[in-house]
């Protein structure tokens, strides 16, 4: 994915586009999995909380 394409997706996600937000989640999946791993196991509750927090706050993000 080109950097310009990423910017487009990010702008769309900030504007409230659900598909763009889903793409952002897919791009950052490894990072989210890393933060959701507790004692070597994936904690799905924690993963869900991280997803929710990103979805709730992305509209406040300024490029």
């Amino acid at each position, binding site marked *: 994915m080109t950097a*310009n394409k990423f910017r487009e997706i990010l702008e769309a996600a900030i504007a409230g586009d659900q598909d763009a937000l889903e793409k952002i989640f897919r791009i950052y999946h490894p990072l989210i999995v890393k933060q959701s791993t507790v004692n070597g196991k994936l904690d799905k509750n924690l993963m869900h909380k991280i997803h929710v927090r*990103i979805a709730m706050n992305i509209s406040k993000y300024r490029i």
Partner: protein
Amino acid sequence: MQKQETTDEVKAMFTAWVEKLAHRVRVKYLTKKAPGPETISLEEISESQLSVNDLRDTSGENIPSFSFGDWRFEEAFSALSMEKQRILIMYFVEGLKPTEIAEELGCTPQHIYNQKYRALRQIRKEHRKRGGEV
């Protein structure tokens, strides 16, 4: 070229934002999941359980009874925190070693030594305040 660099910067900034946000959620989640030692509110404890003379160990047997002899000591002892009272009783009445007390209360032996020292100092001070001589 210039635009490409700017967009890379945007991605890097957003990645840092996501990482920071996810880390905060993780810390908050793990703190909630693993609260400190189990506590019990004072309202749930009856007066008889709080009484020093009626202390029982976990096996249900009475601990050796003791008398202060001097009312000033009794009052000074009552002024101590519950933790300090428990440590003094375990040390002087039950005859446990600081390492054993630490094991039972879930803290370090050094903490027991410190608490014992402070408790005795506080008792001496309170005793003197009431006109006693130590």
